[in-house]
C-alpha cells in the first residue's frame, strides 16, 4: 500500500499521522488472522467427489442439533476452541495497537494546535476514476473524526477485553473476534473516509458486521431473523443515503467532504435541493441510528452476544447517523426545515422508545429502548444545529451505555452460569428472574448505578452535562436562529422548538424512571432465582469487570470534557473548541452568526429543571416499583391494557409486518410471480402463442378430411375467390 502524501505543508504531514492508515488496517489484519483460524480449525475439505458419498451418513448429525434454549447463550457447554489462545491475543491486541496509534495521532493533532484548521487528507489510491467522477480511497483526519476514532478504538478495546471473558467457552470464539475486528475496521473507515462513498463503505460494512454478529448464534431462527431484519432496515436508510449522494454528485459534481463543503456555498439557503439532500441523508441516519420509522431492528438486535450490543448497538455503529449529520453540518445548516425534521423525529423517537422501555422485562431490551431514546436526544442536538452537543452526548452515551450493556452482560453471564450449572432453562435475561443481585455482584451493581445516574441526568455525571447542553441548545434556538424563523409543516419554528424542549424533558423523566426500575428489579429486593441456582451466582472474572471499572470512571467524569461556561471557567467547552474548525462555521450559521447566549438566570433555571426532572423520575420509580412484590417470569400474570401495549412495543412490528412485509410478499408471490410472470407473460404470451399455433394447426388438420369431395369444394371455391378478386378489381 503506497500513500500519496497529503498536501505538503500540512502540520500533520511529517508527524505520526502519516501512519494513520494503519489504524483501520490493524483490525483488518486481525480479522484476516482470526477468520483464518476460525475456518482452519473448522474446515476439513470434503472428498474429491462430493456426490459419491454425501447423503448416506445419517448418523453424523446427532449432536449437531444442540439444545437450543431461548435466552441462554448457546455454546457454553462446548469445550473451548483450540485456537482460543491465539485469538485472545490477536483480537484485543490489534485493537489496543490501533488505540495506541490513535492516541499518538491525537497528540500529534493537539500539538499542531492552531495550524490544524484544514483537515489532513491522505489519499491511498484512486477508487473509481471514470468520466467526471474521481473518487479516491482517502482518509480524512480532523477533529471530528479524531473524537470518533478515540471512542471507537478506546471503547472497542475495552469491549474486546470484556469479550475475552464473556465468550471464552463459545465454539465460535475466533469467528466472534473476526467479526468484531472487521466491525472496528469498517467503523474506522466510516469515520475516517474523506468522502461520502467511503463513509458509505464503512456504513454498509458495519451494517454487515452487525448482521453477522446479531445472527452470531445463527442456529436459532430468531437470531438469524433479527440479523436479517437489521440489515434490511438499514438498507432502507442506505437507499436514502445513496439518493443523497446522487443529488450531491449531480449538482456539485463531487462527493468528497472538502468538495461538498466548498460547493455548498453555491447552494441556495433553505432551497429545495439542499433540503432534499439533507432529508435523504437523514433517511440514511434513521436506518443506521434506529430512529422512527426504522427503529424496530435495534431491540431485536439484542439477539446478538452482549458485547456486540455494547459495542455496535450502543457505543459506536448506531451513532454513525449522528456523526454523519455532524459531518454534513455545512449542508444541514443550509436547510432549517430538514434540521427541524431531524430534531422532531429525534425527540419523538426519544419519547416513544422511552415509553416502551418502561414496560420491558428483558434487561437488554430495556437498554435497547434506552439506546433508541438517547439516540433521539443526539438527533435533537445535531438537529438544532448544536453539533458539538450532539457529538458530546454521543461520547458520554458511549461511555455509560457501554457500561450498562457490559454490566448487564456480567449479570447475564452470572445468571447463565448459575442456570447452566443447575441445568435450568429459565430466561437468564428476564429481570423478573433476578433481584437482589447487589449482594452477589457488588462491583457490577455499583458501576451500573453510576451509569444509571449518569443517563438519568444527575450532576455532575457525564450524562447530565451532555443532556443539559442539548436541552439548553434547543431552548437557546427558540430565539434568534434560522430555525426559529423557519416554518415546519406550517408551524413556526420557535413553537416547534418549544415543543421539542418539552418532549425532551418528558423523555428525560421517563429515562430516569425506567432506568431506576431496571436497577431496582435487577439488583435490589429479594433474589428470585431458585435455591439451587443461588450458590452459583458470582461476580464475573476480572477480565470482564476491569473494563467495567474503566468505563465507570469515564461515565462519571466524561462530562468534564465539555462543561458549560457557567461552571467550567478555564476548563469550559474543551470539546466545543476542539470541534470548532469542523462544525463551528455551520453552528454559527444556524445562530445567525452569533454565539448563542442565555442569561445566567435562564441557564440556572434550565439546569434546575433538568435536575429536578431526573430526581422526580428516580423518586417516582423508587416509590412505584416494588421489587419485593415481583414474581419470577414463569409465574407472572399476563399484562393487560396499556401495559400490554407497551410491553408489546405499541405493536409496531406487527403493524409493519401487516402493512409492508406481508403485502410485499403477497403481491410478489400472487400478483407478480404467479399472476404476471407465470400467468400472463409465460402463460398468455409465451405458451399462449405456442397454444395458439397448436390450435391453428389443429384447425388446419381438421380441414384435411381425406375426402376428395371436400377438397374439390375447397379447390373450386378457392378458384372462384381468386377469379372474383380479378373480376371485381
Amino acid at each position, binding site marked *: 500500500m503506497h500513500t500519496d502524501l497529503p498536501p505538503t505543508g500540512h502540520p500533520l504531514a511529517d508527524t505520526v499521522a502519516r501512519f494513520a492508515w494503519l489504524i483501520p488496517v490493524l483490525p483488518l489484519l486481525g480479522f484476516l488472522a482470526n477468520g483464518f483460524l476460525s475456518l482452519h480449525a473448522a474446515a476439513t475439505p470434503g472428498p474429491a467427489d462430493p456426490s459419491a458419498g454425501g447423503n448416506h451418513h445419517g448418523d453424523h448429525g446427532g449432536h449437531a442439533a444442540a439444545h437450543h434454549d431461548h435466552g441462554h447463550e448457546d455454546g457454553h457447554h462446548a469445550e473451548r476452541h483450540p485456537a482460543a489462545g491465539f485469538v485472545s491475543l490477536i483480537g484485543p491486541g490489534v485493537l489496543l495497537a490501533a488505540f495506541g496509534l490513535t492516541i499518538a495521532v491525537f497528540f500529534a493533532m493537539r500539538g499542531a494546535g492552531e495550524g490544524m484548521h484544514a483537515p489532513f487528507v491522505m489519499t491511498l489510491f484512486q477508487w473509481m476514476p471514470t468520466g467526471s467522477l474521481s473518487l479516491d480511497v482517502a482518509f480524512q483526519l480532523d477533529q471530528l473524526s479524531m473524537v470518533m476514532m478515540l471512542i471507537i478504538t478506546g471503547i472497542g478495546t475495552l469491549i474486546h477485553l470484556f469479550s475475552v471473558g464473556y465468550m471464552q467457552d463459545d465454539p465460535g470464539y475466533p469467528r466472534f473476534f473476526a467479526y468484531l475486528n472487521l466491525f472496528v475496521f469498517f467503523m474506522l473507515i466510516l469515520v475516517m473516509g474523506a468522502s461520502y462513498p467511503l463513509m458509505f463503505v464503512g456504513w454498509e460494512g458495519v451494517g454487515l458486521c452487525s448482521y453477522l454478529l446479531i445472527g452470531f448464534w445463527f442456529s436459532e431462527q430468531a437470531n438469524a431473523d433479527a440479523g436479517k431484519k437489521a440489515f434490511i432496515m438499514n438498507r432502507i436508510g442506505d437507499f436514502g443515503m445513496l439518493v443523497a449522494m446522487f443529488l450531491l454528485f449531480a449538482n456539485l459534481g463531487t462527493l468528497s467532504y472538502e468538495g461538498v463543503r466548498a460547493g455548498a456555498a453555491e447552494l441556495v439557503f433553505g432551497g429545495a435541493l439542499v433540503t432534499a439532500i439533507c432529508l435523504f441523508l437523514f433517511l440514511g441516519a434513521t436506518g443506521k441510528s434506529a430512529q422512527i420509522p426504522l427503529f424496530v431492528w435495534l431491540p431485536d438486535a439484542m439477539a446478538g452476544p452482549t458485547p456486540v450490543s455494547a459495542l455496535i448497538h450502543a457505543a459506536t455503529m448506531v451513532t454513525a447517523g449522528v456523526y454523519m449529520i455532524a459531518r454534513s453540518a455545512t449542508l444541514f445548516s443550509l436547510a432549517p426545515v430538514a434540521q427541524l425534521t431531524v430534531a422532531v423525529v429525534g425527540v419523538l423517537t426519544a419519547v416513544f422508545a422511552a415509553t416502551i422501555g418502561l414496560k420491558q422485562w428483558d434487561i437488554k431490551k430495556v437498554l435497547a429502548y434506552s439506546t433508541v431514546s438517547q439516540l433521539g436526544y443526539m438527533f435533537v442536538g445535531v438537529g438544532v444545529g448544536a453539533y458539538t452537543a450532539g457529538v458530546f452526548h454521543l461520547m458520554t452515551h458511549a461511555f455509560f451505555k457501554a457500561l450498562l450493556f457490559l454490566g448487564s452482560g456480567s449479570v447475564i453471564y452470572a445468571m447463565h452460569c448459575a442456570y447452566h450449572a443447575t441445568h435450568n432453562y429459565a430466561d437468564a435475561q428476564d429481570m423478573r428472574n433476578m433481584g437482589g443481585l447487589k449482594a452477589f455482584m457488588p462491583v457490577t451493581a455499583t458501576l451500573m448505578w453510576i451509569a444509571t445516574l449518569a443517563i438519568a441526568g444527575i450532576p455532575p455525571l457525564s450524562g447530565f452535562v451532555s443532556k443539559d447542553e442539548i436541552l439548553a441548545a434547543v431552548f437557546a434556538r427558540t430565539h434568534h436562529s434560522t430555525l426559529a424563523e423557519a416554518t415546519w409543516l406550517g408551524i413556526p419554528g420557535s413553537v416547534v422548538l418549544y415543543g421539542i424542549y418539552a418532549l425532551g424533558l418528558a423523555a428525560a423523566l421517563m429515562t430516569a424512571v425506567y432506568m431506576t426500575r431496571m436497577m431496582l428489579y435487577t439488583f435490589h429486593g429479594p433474589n428470585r432465582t431458585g435455591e439451587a441456582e443461588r450458590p452459583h451466582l458470582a461476580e464475573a472474572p476480572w477480565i470482564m469487570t476491569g473494563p467495567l471499572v474503566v468505563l465507570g470512571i469515564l461515565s462519571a467524569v466524561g462530562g468534564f470534557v465539555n462543561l458549560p461556561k457557567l461552571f467550567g471557567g478555564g476548563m469550559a467547552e474543551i470539546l466545543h473548541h476542539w470541534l470548532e474548525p469542523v462544525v463551528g462555521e455551520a453552528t454559527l450559521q444556524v445562530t445567525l452568526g452569533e454565539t448563542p447566549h442565555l442569561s445566567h438566570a435562564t441557564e440556572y433555571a434550565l439546569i434546575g429543571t433538568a435536575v429536578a426532572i431526573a430526581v422526580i423520575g428516580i423518586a417516582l420509580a423508587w416509590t412505584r416499583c416494588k421489587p419485593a412484590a415481583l414474581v419470577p417470569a414463569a409465574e407472572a400474570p399476563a399484562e393487560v391494557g396499556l401495559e400490554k401495549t407497551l410491553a408489546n412495543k405499541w405493536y409496531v412490528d406487527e403493524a409493519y409486518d401487516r402493512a409492508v412485509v406481508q403485502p410485499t410478499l403477497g403481491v410478489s408471490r400472487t400478483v407478480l410471480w404467479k399472476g404476471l410472470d407465470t400467468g400472463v407473460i409465460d402463460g398468455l404470451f409465451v405458451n399462449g402463442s405456442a397454444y395458439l399455433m397448436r390450435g391453428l394447426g389443429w384447425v388446419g*388438420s381438421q380441414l*384435411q*378430411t*381425406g*375426402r*376428395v*369431395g371436400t*377438397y*374439390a*369444394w375447397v379447390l*373450386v371455391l378457392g378458384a372462384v375467390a381468386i377469379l372474383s378478386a380479378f373480376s371485381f378489381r
Partner: protein
Amino acid sequence: MLAESLLLSAVLFTIGVVGVLTRRNAIILFMCVELMLNAVNLTFVALSTLYGATGQVFVIMVMTVAAAEAAVGLAIIISIFRHRQTVHLDDINLLKG
C-alpha cells in the same frame, strides 16, 4: 365462331365442375374431370385458329395425359373397390394422414 367456342368451352367446363361437386361416385367424378379437360381442349383448338398449331399440340398432350390418368386412376379405383367394396368418395378417406 371463336366467341361461341369459348363460351361453349366455359359452359362445358362449368358443367364439369358442378359434376365434380355434386357426384360422389368416383368413376363419374373421373368422367367429369374428362369433361373439363375436353372443355379446355376446345379452347385450345379454338384459339389455334388465331395463333397457329401450338394449341393443337397442347391438345395432343392433354389427351395423352388424360389417357394416362384414366389408366392409373381407374386402376386405383379398382384397387380401392377390392378393399372397400365401394367407390363412394364419402366412404373413402385414405388421404387423411
